[in-house]
C-alpha cells in the first residue's frame, strides 16, 4: 500500500486572532476555555493521519467535533491555520490559487451531505460539472458522465432535473458527479446522513461494492459509528477538534482508548467487526502431535485453559483436533481421540457473517490464506467477545503510531 495522503499537525482556528488561540492550545486549554478567553473557535486541533491509496478512511465524530471543517481543509474550501497536507508528496497548503484549482479539478472531488446539486441543470449536466469546469472536450465529458451515471445505476435519468429525484437518487447523482472527474481522492462529507435508514444501508453497500472496482482513496465523514465501522479500513474518532483514537474498526471497538470511544461501540453488534484472525490471536492455540500421549495433551489443555487442541505432525501438517473430554476417555495416544476439522474460517472473515459454522462442542479452525491453521475457536470464545470483552493486551494502535496515536495533549487531558 502506498501512502496517498498525509496530514501533519493540522489546525483550524476560526476568528480574527488565531495566534492567541494557538498559544492557549499549546498550553493545553480545551476549546470552551479558548472561546471564552479569546472569542476564537478552535475547530481542528493538531490532526495528524495517513491514508493509504485505495482505502476508506473515516473521520467519525458528533456534531461540532470539527469533522466537517477538517474535511474542508483537505481541499482548502476552508483555509487551515497551520499544518501540512501532503498529497502525492506535495504539500497542497503551499499551492497557489490556480494550482489548488487544478488539484480540485483533477485529484480531489467531493460529495456533500445535502447533495448540493444545481437545480437548474439536468442530472447529466450536474454529473459533468467538474469536467466542463476544467474544459474537457464535449465527447470526453459525455462519455465520462454516461459512465459515471451507469456506475451509480442512474442510466436513463440523464434528462431529469434534481427536483424530480428522491433523496437517495440525488446522492447517487452527487456521487456520480464526484466520480466523473476521475479523482484520486473522494471526500465524502456525511453523504448518507440525510437519507432514511433503508436507503442509507443500500447506498453503503453499493459504495463498498463500487469501491472494490474503482479503488479510490476515500475520506468519509460521518457521525454514525455503525456506518464508520461498516465502511472504513481505518477510522479516526474525533472529539472537540482533536483525534481521540485512530485505528481499524477492530481497534476502535475492541481496543478503545477511553470510555468516550468505548461508549460508541456499546450499542453495536460487535460480531460485525470481529475478524477470525482477532479471535485466533486472542486465545492460545494448543498444538499436540498425533503420537503424543493423551494424558500429556490433556495436561497441556488444562494448563492453557482451552477445551480443544490442534493435532499437528512435527512437520506442521494438520491432522484434526482433540477435545478435552475425548482425551479423558482414552488411555492411548492423541490420534485415538482425534476428530476431523471440518469447520473453518478464513482469517480475514468477519465472524458475525459465519455464526452458522459454530456447532456445540466443536471448534472452528481459523485458516490463513496460505492454509496455515492459526487457531481453534469456539462459540464460547465468540460470546466472550460479543459480551464486551476487550483485548487483554491492549497496545494502542501501536502499528500506525506515531501519526495515528492520540495527540499528547488529549492523552494528558484524558488519562
Amino acid at each position, binding site marked *: 500500500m502506498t501512502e496517498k495522503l498525509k496530514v501533519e499537525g493540522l489546525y483550524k482556528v476560526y476568528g480574527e486572532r488565531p495566534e492567541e488561540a494557538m498559544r492557549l492550545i499549546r498550553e493545553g486549554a480545551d476549546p470552551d476555555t479558548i472561546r471564552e478567553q479569546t472569542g476564537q473557535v478552535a475547530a481542528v486541533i493538531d490532526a495528524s493521519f495517513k491514508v493509504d491509496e485505495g482505502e476508506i478512511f473515516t473521520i467519525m465524530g458528533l456534531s461540532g467535533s470539527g469533522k466537517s471543517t477538517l474535511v474542508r481543509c483537505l481541499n482548502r474550501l476552508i483555509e487551515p491555520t497551520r499544518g501540512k497536507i501532503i498529497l502525492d508528496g506535495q504539500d497542497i497548503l503551499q499551492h497557489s490559487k490556480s494550482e489548488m484549482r487544478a488539484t480540485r479539478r483533477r485529484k480531489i472531488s467531493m460529495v*456533500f451531505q445535502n447533495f*448540493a446539486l444545481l*437545480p*437548474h441543470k439536468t442530472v447529466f449536466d450536474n454529473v459533468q460539472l467538474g469536467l466542463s*469546469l476544467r474544459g474537457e472536450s464535449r465527447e470526453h465529458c459525455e462519455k465520462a458522465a454516461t459512465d459515471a451515471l451507469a456506475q451509480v445505476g442512474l442510466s436513463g435519468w440523464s434528462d431529469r432535473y434534481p427536483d424530480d429525484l428522491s433523496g437517495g437518487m440525488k446522492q447517487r447523482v452527487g456521487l456520480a458527479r464526484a466520480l466523473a472527474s476521475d479523482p484520486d481522492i473522494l471526500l465524502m462529507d456525511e453523504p448518507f446522513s440525510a437519507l432514511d435508514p433503508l436507503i442509507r444501508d443500500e447506498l453503503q453497500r453499493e459504495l463498498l461494492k463500487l469501491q472494490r472496482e474503482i479503488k479510490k482513496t476515500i475520506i468519509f465523514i460521518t457521525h454514525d459509528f455503525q456506518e464508520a465501522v461498516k465502511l472504513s479500513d481505518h477510522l479516526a474518532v474525533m472529539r472537540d477538534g482533536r483525534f481521540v483514537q485512530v485505528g481499524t474498526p477492530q481497534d476502535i471497538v475492541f481496543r478503545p482508548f477511553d470510555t468516550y470511544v468505548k461508549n460508541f461501540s456499546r450499542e453495536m453488534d460487535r460480531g460485525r467487526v470481529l475478524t477470525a484472525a482477532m479471535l485466533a490471536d486472542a486465545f492460545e492455540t494448543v498444538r499436540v502431535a498425533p503420537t503424543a500421549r493423551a494424558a500429556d495433551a490433556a495436561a497441556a489443555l488444562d494448563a492453557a485453559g482451552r477445551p480443544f487442541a490442534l493435532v499437528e505432525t512435527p512437520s506442521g501438517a494438520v491432522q484434526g483436533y482433540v477435545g478435552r473430554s475425548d482425551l479423558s476417555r482414552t488411555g492411548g495416544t492423541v490420534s485415538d481421540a482425534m476428530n476431523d476439522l471440518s469447520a473453518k474460517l478464513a482469517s480475514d472473515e468477519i465472524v458475525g457473517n459465519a455464526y452458522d459454522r459454530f456447532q456445540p462442542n466443536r471448534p472452528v479452525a481459523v485458516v490463513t490464506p496460505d492454509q496455515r491453521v492459526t487457531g481453534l475457536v469456539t462459540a464460547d470464545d465468540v460470546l466472550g467477545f460479543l459480551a464486551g470483552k476487550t483485548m487483554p493486551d491492549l497496545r494502542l494502535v501501536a502499528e500506525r503510531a506515531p501519526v495515528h496515536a492520540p495527540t499528547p495533549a488529549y492523552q494528558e487531558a484524558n488519562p
Partner: protein
Amino acid sequence: MMDRVPQEYVFPLDDYIQTGVHWVVDEWRPFFQALRWPIAKVLDVTLDSLVFMPFWGVVAVLLVLGWRLADIRAGITAALSFTVIAFLGLWDEAMISLSILITSVVFCVIVGVPLGILAGRSNMFWAFLRPILDTMQTTPSFVYLVPVVMLFGIGTVPGVIATIIFSMPPIIRLTNLGLRQVPADAIEAGEAFGATEWQTLVRIRMPMAMPSIMAGLNQTLLMALVMSVIISMIGAEGLGLTVLRGIGALDVGLAGIGGLSIVLIAISLDRITQGLGQPRKSAGDQKGFIGRIGRAAQLRRSAA
C-alpha cells in the same frame, strides 16, 4: 412674521442649484449628448421595426412571444389587447409607447444587471448603492423630469432617459437579492470542483438568481410603463401624450381610449413577463435560451 427666518439668513440653495446645473449643462454638453446617442439609436430602430410591420404582424409576434415565454393564455391576452388598441385608432401612439418601453427596459437591463451583480458580490458597493436606490424609489416621478429637462432638453429621448433612471432600481435590487440568495452549498460545490470566480458567476450564481432577476425585470417594466405616461409632460410622444391632450382639451373620450390602451399594454406585458414565473410543464424539456428562461421560471415558482 416672527416665526420666519429673516430674508438675509435664508440659504439660497435654489440659486446654487441653478448655477451648478447651468455650469454642468455648459461644460458637460458633449458628455450628455454622447449619452443621448445610443438611446436615440435603439429607440429609432425599435420604433422603425414596429412601424414597419403591419399591425397583425406585431400581434402575431406578441402571440408567439407570450406563448413561448409564458403560456398560450398570455399570448392570446397580448394579441387581443393589441388588436383592440389597433381598432381604437391609437396604433401609432401605442407603437411609440411600446418602443419607449422596450428601449428603457433594454438599457435598464444593460446597466442594472451588472450593477446588481457588483452589489451582490461586494458588500461595500451594496452599502454605497443601497441608500441611492432607497432615495430613488422614494422620489416622486415628477422630480426626475426637472434635471432631465435641464441636462437633455425636452422630447421623446429625454423622456426615455427619465424612464430608464426611474425604473432601474428594481432590477438592480432583485439581481442583488437573487445573487445573495443562491444557496451556499451550490457555490461550495462549484468551488470544490475547481470553478473560477467567473465560472461560479456564470454557471451557478446567475442561473440560480435568474428567477429573482426575472421578477426584477417584471417590476422594472411596470415602472417604465408608469413613467412612459408621465414623460408626456416633457414632450415625449406616445399614449401618454394622447391622455395629456385629452385632459388638456377636456376631451374625456380621447383621454379614455388613451388610458384604456395603456392599461391593455400593461396587462399584456405584465402577463408575458410574469408568465416567466408561472408553472409550465414542458419548459424543462426545452433546449436553448427560451427553455432556460422557462426552467428559471419553474424554479421561481417552487421557491415561492
